[in-house]
Structure formats: structure tokens, C-alpha cells
């Protein structure tokens, strides 16, 4: 570790960070929406298309062989990335959203019945709510939500045992909240759920590229992640599923590659994981995801997690000091994002003003409308960090926010 450059040394690997926006150096603080990409990932895409491009599987010629090997190597890499026991436990999807939809359909349609309960939390992203609402509508199941304590945004686990009833079929919850920065105790909750025979799904969209991730230690049955939030390209993500569960599940999408035999009127399915990957996959982006995972492990995910906590807490403290601000999310043990509202200034005005100074923030409900309604707000402003962000950038953000307060006479 001593031979690795400081985290700020990796900044040079990200071409998009080195530009001016509205005449100011870009300060990119919208990493929870999507991260920037290092040149090695961009090069992995170009190299594939320039040298090895072909369709995968079933192909014998050299290019197809190269593409197939690189594609399946990414599956092995992804399994290692999250410490899955079997390579076949990795299913490639467009991202977290498609992964959760896959579970809600392929697992849910068989496993969930009328009267069953699908347990979520109040801080879930729409992608971990709406597929379950649709499943509930189809099956007659009900949704229940583990409450959030309020602005400090912790799960209220005081009555958790009342929620984990024998009617609950699945507990699906986010590892890190994209709206609050809360890090949920997923291992603990999955262990509790497992003792009740409840299936668990962890939404790792915000944690996958930000900290070490070990599905066996978490003890979940499913886990979903998006490549684009962890230095990878858009359009590719993974669903992890426990092998024995995947094997009992029906397929979801039908088409090429997911079958072993097709007759006019019926078909037999291919083995896991291919059973869940219909049609030509997103080959190039999958292979580039391999490069992203290698890159992240070169940087070091423990270091990224430590940096997240540090910069997140620093930003939180600086914001608090500003005054005339409402802060969301926990005071301690937080991830690398801050969510806030300046008194009497709308989140979108803040974002427009910050943008003029080159600072990229996000304002809105962050795809967590139910949480926003619970907190009594329609939107917040959010600054979300990655390992290439510096405390100087946070200081600049604070200066800009003070400027906005001044402009608005606050």
C-alpha cells in the first residue's frame, strides 16, 4: 500500500475531470448519479472494438473466441469482486434496476403469493420500490417499510422483530442510501432475515465501487450493482444470486442463448447464468467493466471507503458550520455524500448557481420520493464524492454555497 500513490494521484486518470465549465474548473460532485471513467476503461472499449469485436458464445472463429473468453472472464472477475462462491452466480444486466426487476419477476412471480409481505425500507430508491409494487399488484402481496428515524436518516430498528414476521418473503434494502448517505447494517439484517427463512436482496448501487463488498460476509441471497457508478461504462451491471436459488428460478426474458433446446411449441432452458441472459449481451461494456474492477482494486477499495467517510464527514461538518442549512443523513459513520437544503433557497436554485461556478451538484428527489414526502420536502441538494475528489473541492463548494446565501440575502 505504501507504494501506491495518494488517492489524489489517480485524478489524472479521468479525462473528463480536466475541463472548464462556464469558465471554471469542473468540480464534479455528482458521483452518486454516475462516476467519471478512467482512461483504462475507455481504452478497454476502444481496444475491444478495434481488435476483438465479435459476437460471443457459439462462435468458433478467432474473434468470436477472443470475445467469448474476455466476456466470461469478466464474470469470473465480478464473482471475485464481490467474493461470490461460484462464477455462475453472476448475471449481467443493464444495471441495478434491471437486476432488481429480474428478481421481482423470475424469483418473485413463483415465490410470492397473496397475503405475503415484501419488506423494504423507507429510504429505498424507486428502483427498489416500483418493481415490488408491480409484483405486489400481480400477486396480491403487500409491501411493508422499515421506518427511517427522520432527518438523521437511520433505519429505526427498534421494532425490527415486529417487521420480520413469518409472512415476509423477501427483505430488499439498500446498502448505502443515495439520498442520505446512510450505511445500513446489511449483514446484521440479512442474518436476522435468514433465521426467519426470509430471502434477502441488497441494493449495492451506491456501495459497489466505494468499499470492499463480500456477499458471503453480508449473507444476502441477491445483490444488485451498476457498473456506471463504479468507474465502468453505462449499460452494464450485475445481479448476484445464490446458485441454488438461481437454479430453481424460471427465466425472465426469452431469446437467443438462454435456451438449450427450442421446438416450435416449447423450449428447455440453458444452465445458470445463461438462462437469465437472453439475446446478444452488452459485450463491450461487460469487458470494460472488467477493466473498471481491476482499476478499483488497484486504487484499493478500503482506501476509497476511508476517503468516503473522511470527505463525507468533512463536508457535513463544514456545511453545519455554515448555518441556515438543514442537513440530512447521519452525523457519524456516513458515506461520501451530503444532502442538504439551504434555508429559504430551493435546491434547484442552488444547483443552477453552483453550476455557474463549475460545481456539478444534483437537486431533486434523488428517485426517493416516498422518503422525501416522509421528510416533508420535495427535494434536496446533494454533493456526492468519489476518491478523486479533494477537501479543496469541498472548500470550494462551501464558498459557493456561502455566495448563494449572500445572493439570496440569507
Amino acid at each position, binding site marked *: 500500500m505504501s507504494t501506491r500513490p495518494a488517492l489524489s494521484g489517480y485524478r489524472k486518470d479521468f479525462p473528463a475531470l480536466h475541463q472548464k465549465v462556464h469558465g471554471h474548473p469542473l468540480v464534479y460532485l455528482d458521483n452518486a448519479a454516475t462516476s467519471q471513467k478512467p482512461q483504462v476503461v475507455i481504452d478497454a472499449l476502444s481496444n475491444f472494438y478495434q481488435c476483438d469485436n465479435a459476437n460471443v458464445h457459439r462462435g468458433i472463429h478467432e474473434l468470436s473466441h477472443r470475445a467469448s473468453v474476455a466476456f466470461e472472464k469478466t464474470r469470473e472477475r465480478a464473482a471475485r469482486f464481490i467474493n461470490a462462491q461460484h462464477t455462475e452466480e453472476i448475471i449481467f444486466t443493464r444495471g441495478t434496476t434491471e437486476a432488481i426487476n429480474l428478481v421481482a419477476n423470475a424469483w418473485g412471480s413463483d415465490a410470492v403469493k397473496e397475503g405475503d409481505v415484501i419488506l423494504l425500507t423507507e429510504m429505498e430508491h424507486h428502483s427498489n420500490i416500483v418493481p415490488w409494487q408491480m409484483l405486489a399488484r400481480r400477486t396480491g402481496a403487500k409491501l411493508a417499510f422499515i421506518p427511517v428515524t427522520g432527518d438523521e436518516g437511520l433505519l429505526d430498528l427498534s421494532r425490527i422483530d415486529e417487521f420480520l414476521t413469518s409472512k415476509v418473503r423477501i427483505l430488499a434494502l439498500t446498502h448505502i442510501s443515495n439520498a442520505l448517505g446512510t450505511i445500513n447494517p446489511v449483514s446484521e439484517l440479512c442474518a436476522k432475515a435468514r433465521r426467519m427463512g426470509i430471502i434477502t436482496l441488497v441494493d449495492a448501487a451506491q456501495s459497489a465501487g466505494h468499499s470492499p463488498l463480500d456477499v458471503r460476509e453480508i449473507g444476502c441471497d441477491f445483490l444488485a450493482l451498476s457498473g456506471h457508478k463504479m468507474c465502468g461504462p453505462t449499460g452494464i451491471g450485475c445481479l448476484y444470486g445464490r446458485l441454488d436459488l438461481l437454479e430453481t428460478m424460471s427465466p425472465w426474458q426469452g431469446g437467443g442463448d438462454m435456451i438449450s433446446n427450442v421446438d416450435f411449441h416449447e423450449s428447455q432452458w440453458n444452465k445458470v447464468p445463461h438462462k437469465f441472459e437472453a439475446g446478444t449481451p452488452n459485450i463491450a461494456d461487460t469487458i470494460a467493466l472488467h477493466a473498471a474492477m481491476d482499476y478499483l482494486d488497484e486504487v484499493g477499495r478500503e482506501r476509497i471507503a476511508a476517503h468516503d467517510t473522511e470527505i463525507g464527514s468533512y463536508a457535513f461538518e463544514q456545511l453545519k458550520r455554515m448555518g441556515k442549512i438543514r442537513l440530512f443523513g447521519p452525523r457519524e459513520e456516513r458515506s461520501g455524500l451530503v444532502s442538504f437544503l439551504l434555508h429559504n433557497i430551493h435546491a434547484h436554485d442552488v444547483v*443552477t448557481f453552483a453550476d455557474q461556478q463549475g460545481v456539478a451538484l444534483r*437537486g431533486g428527489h434523488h428517485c426517493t420520493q416516498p422518503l422525501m414526502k416522509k421528510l416533508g420536502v*420535495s427535494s434536496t441538494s446533494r454533493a456526492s464524492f468519489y476518491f478523486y475528489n479533494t477537501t479543496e473541492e469541498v472548500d470550494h463548494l462551501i464558498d459557493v454555497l456561502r455566495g448563494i446565501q449572500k445572493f439570496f*440575502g440569507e
Partner: protein
Amino acid sequence: MFEELNDLYQQVIMDHSRKPHNFGILAGANCCARGKNPLCGDQIQIFLSTEDHVVKDLRWEGDGCAIFKASSSLMTDAIKGKTTAEVKVLFEEFHSLITTGKMSEDHHLGKLAVLSGVNRFPARVKCALLGWRAAMSALEGNPQSVTTE
């Protein structure tokens, strides 16, 4: 620090957004509507009382960004006393102003012209239109929720 924004957030706009005109509920309104900006979730409710196709009085309620509040406030000032036909013309002039920045020579925009800067901020156009869309749909007898899309 924010020179480029002095145009968008002019003093008039800041004033209207802090102290919006015609804010509140109108008892005895004969048409009303709700509107919502799906981008941010902000909402408006508008109440009009019309007589012989003339907007006699109106009030609005809602919370949102400064552009939205100022635009809604200015809009209510601008259409009070106008006929439905005049309001329609005004809306078209206003719509063209904030999407293209252009005004015809014989426009009737008056104070609304302070919003011309919005056209350079495409992400904020919906903010400036939200109040208008609600008013238009109320006038058309369409009380259900409209969106700015």
C-alpha cells in the same frame, strides 16, 4: 461571484419570489387547477374567478424555486383583468420568450420580460412555465393536474 446569473435572477425576480403577489386561496373561485413539475416535484394550485371571459381575480399557492415563484407571481399580476383571449396571446408570447429569448415588436409582455434570461437555462424553462400551465388549464376548464411536459 455570480455575474452570469444577474440576468436570470434579477432584482424583480428575487423580490417576487420572496414576496409573491396574489398568494393564497381564493374563496368563491369558479375555476381552478393543479400543476406539477415532474423534474423537481414542485406543485402549484391556482384559483380563478372569471366573469364574461374576463379574469376578475385569482390566487395561487405552491412552493418551489425562485424562478417558479417569481414567474407565477408575475403571471397573476399580468393576467388579472384580461380576457381569456388576451391571456392566450400573452401565454404564447411568454412561451416563445422563455424558450427562444425572442419578443415580437408589438408584444404585450410588460414586466414579464424580466424572465427573458430563462431561455439560456433550458433546465429551468419548466419552472417558469409551471404557473402558466396551471392557469391555462384552469381557464380551459381542466381542473385535473397538468404537468410542465
